[in-house]
């Protein structure tokens, strides 16, 4: 018997594929002759195509942001299901929600695991390193194909927030609201350092084979797992980890083993996260996206002045940060706000108290969701006023 989905779920969703035959020039100087992008949509596009919302995913996310893929075995819903659906903060009764897997990804859009037309082998490490600007340009082509001239809102957390910001800069007249959540105007030295350790973990795995591991029928499991474990530490906060795991030993354990077995709860959590990630993610994509993060710096195109970058934007901004996020701390979000204020742009800023660290942007924190709900309810009223 098919499963019944919760009433506030978008229910069963089927990913779609858009194919692009026109070459896409990339920031690195290379180009993609043709490519595919996998995406999902929820809700209905209205007659004047003015109610579309783009969700941008972060490092390990993909196009499956809400709903379920399998009716008989629903498993876990999309990665931001708690926020998207009928009656949820991103209300699919009001908005037509789009989310795509970004280029360079490993969930169906053209990336390192795709076949390179030049040599009929997977691209692997030869896939060009794409930037946030490249992503935004590719997403704009997807919007063209869907008939969306202007997004009612573009929303993203972390690296997704950087895309929301870049959209407003690159295509000022195509975004009405840019929601930048738990992001930063560019990576700090410390952020880049963490990314480098993650990359080295993968690069130094004997199964990496200079990125051509597909040909050897192996994956650099240990390296990718280590990278993910390290990442996870930076996504949580000290107090959040203490609250969740403390110094508890694994279930049933009373004493130390005095060896290197998994003894503490936090160790088994990290190992579990690492193992689970290896089965669903590609190491070359991980390497590529950490570079995408490192390279993001919209101010660089404007004499290192972020407020100049924002001068041309027309969107209204909502910037949200979380108190215990130390990967992209509230101070980094306030840099964005400061630049927007200096540029005279419309911006609101909310700083949400939370213990969840960087991961908070995925959590259904009541104040956070209430801020999103209130802000987007207004954006929906604008859509309806335009249509009327």
């Amino acid at each position, binding site marked *: 018997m098919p499963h019944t989905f919760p009433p506030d779920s978008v229910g069963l969703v089927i990913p779609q594929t858009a194919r692009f035959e026109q070459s896409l020039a990339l920031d690195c100087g290379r180009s993609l002759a043709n490519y595919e992008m996998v995406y999902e949509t929820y809700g209905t596009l209205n007659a004047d195509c003015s109610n579309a919302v783009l969700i941008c995913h972060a490092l390990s996310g993909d196009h499956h942001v809400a709903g379920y893929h399998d009716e008989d075995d629903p498993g876990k819903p999309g990665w931001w299901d708690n926020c998207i659906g009928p009656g949820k903060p991103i209300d699919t009764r009001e908005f037509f929600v789009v989310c795509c897997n970004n280029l360079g990804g490993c969930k169906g859009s053209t990336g390192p695991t795709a076949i390179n037309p030049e040599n009929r082998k997977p691209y692997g490490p030869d896939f060009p390193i794409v930037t946030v600007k490249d992503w935004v340009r590719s997403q704009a082509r997807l919007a063209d194909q869907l008939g969306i001239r202007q997004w009612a809102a573009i929303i993203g957390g972390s690296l997704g927030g950087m895309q929301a910001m870049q959209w407003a800069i690159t295509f000022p007249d195509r975004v009405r609201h840019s929601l930048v959540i738990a992001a930063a105007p560019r990576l700090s030295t410390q952020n880049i350092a963490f990314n480098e350790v993650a990359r080295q973990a993968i690069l130094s795995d004997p199964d990496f084979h200079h990125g051509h591991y597909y040909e050897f029928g192996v994956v650099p499991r240990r390296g990718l797992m280590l990278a993910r474990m390290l990442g996870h530490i930076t996504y949580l906060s000290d107090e959040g980890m203490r609250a969740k795991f403390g110094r508890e030993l694994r279930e049933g354990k009373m004493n130390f083993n005095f060896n290197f077995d998994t003894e503490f709860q936090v160790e088994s959590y990290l190992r579990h996260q690492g193992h689970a990630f290896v089965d669903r993610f590609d190491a070359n994509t991980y390497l590529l996206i950490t570079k995408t993060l490192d390279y993001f710096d919209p101010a660089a195109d404007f004499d290192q002045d972020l407020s100049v970058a924002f001068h041309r934007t027309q969107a209204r901004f909502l910037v949200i940060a979380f108190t215990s996020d130390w990967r992209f701390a509230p101070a980094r979000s*306030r840099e964005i*706000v400061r630049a927007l*204020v*200096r540029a*005279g742009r419309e911006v*609101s*800023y909310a*700083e949400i108290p939370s213990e969840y660290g960087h991961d908070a942007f995925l959590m259904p924190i009541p104040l956070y969701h209430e801020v999103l709900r209130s*802000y987007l309810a*207004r954006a929906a009223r604008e859509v309806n006023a335009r249509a009327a």
Partner: protein
Amino acid sequence: MLVRPELELISEWIRPGARVLDLGCGDGALLAYLREHRQVSGYGLEIDNANMLQCIQIGVNVIHADLEAGLADFGDSSFDYVIMTQTLQAVRQTEALLDEMLRVGRQGIVTFPNFGFWRCRVQIALQGLMPVVKTLPYEWYNTPNIHLFTLHDFEQLCRLKHIDILQRMVLDHAHRPRPGPKLWPNLLGEIALYRLGRA
């Protein structure tokens, strides 16, 4: 909580199309009013979650921040007016905040309850109790107002700090500009509005 007469009076002092920063903007009523009647653009600073949400609901730009932490995020003379309504008496760094206000804004507008109002004087002089009046409705143990001062106190501070008083209005508790407060402001005035500048 701002009432309509106060919004109207402040609004009269604001040049149309100005850039405004409202410190402790509450539910955003003043900015919404000024946006509608004076076409201003600007932002409110607010620490309270419920107020911040209210601002977002009515589409007022709100920056969720503690104004006690200062205005370092804002550049010199980046606003035409920095406004602080019924807030000056409730902050810890009163003097520093006044300085910041006139650094960030070309002009400052403040409103506050007058502790020199005759009822206050009578209560403290004859009953020996901390005053409770309409504009200062709290008991000493639950009041958010930690700096109580009179019109004279404030004007003395302005002289000391070389702050120019460009305009002053003294009102009764219902925000009416009655003849009494006009004649003896520090004795009969209950609420004071000041427009400030610094050469």
